[in-house]
């Protein structure tokens, strides 16, 4: 399936774009997406960590992605 991954903050800098189109297999988990990102963009491994949000909620590693989801990379937040 085809997904689009939103990126913010340093994640946007690492990807060089705000929206990354990706082709992944059906039922790709959050964990697998993270692994794919680290494989293709090793800079992600150097971060203090990063999360994946799906449809505006933080999701655990075992959450399964669907094509219609709004998926976002959330690098360490620093508001306030």
């Amino acid at each position, binding site marked *: 399936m085809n997904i689009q991954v939103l990126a*913010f*903050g340093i994640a946007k800098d690492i990807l060089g774009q705000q929206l990354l189109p990706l082709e992944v297999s059906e039922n790709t988990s959050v964990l697998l997406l993270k692994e794919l990102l680290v494989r293709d963009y090793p800079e992600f491994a150097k971060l203090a960590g990063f999360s994946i949000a799906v449809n505006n*909620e933080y999701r655990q590693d075992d959450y399964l992605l669907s094509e219609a989801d709004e998926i*976002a990379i959330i690098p*360490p*937040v*620093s*508001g*306030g």
Partner: protein
Amino acid sequence: MIHISIKEEALSLAECQALIEDEAVGGIVHFVGTVRNQTKGNQVTKLEFEAYEKMALLEMEKIGKAALQQFDIERFVLQHRIGTLYLKEIAVIIVVGAKHRKAAFQACEFAIDSLKKTVPIWKKEFFIDGSHWVSAHP
């Protein structure tokens, strides 16, 4: 009462105070986060805040709901600024109104601590000779 917003223009303390006014409130605590001139000895010239706005508003709302649930408070206001901010400008205002002051202090500190952990907003610090995303690296 929960009021949440993210704004590109300057935040107003007076506006936040007006939102909190309530005859049942006796103690109000404001937290105001401003742009400081130094981080770890480096001279800061400006900041840029970026938000994943839809999700940030939802996470801010969650903090307000949790504060109203956990503490005996009446009103909760949380406003965050995004865009470019210079020294002394206000990045965030949290205002909590309660019958008694203790709950207002606790809820306000809880809210700013939570915001810094969960709300998808990112701060880029600019120095004379470079910039970096705060907290991105260990």
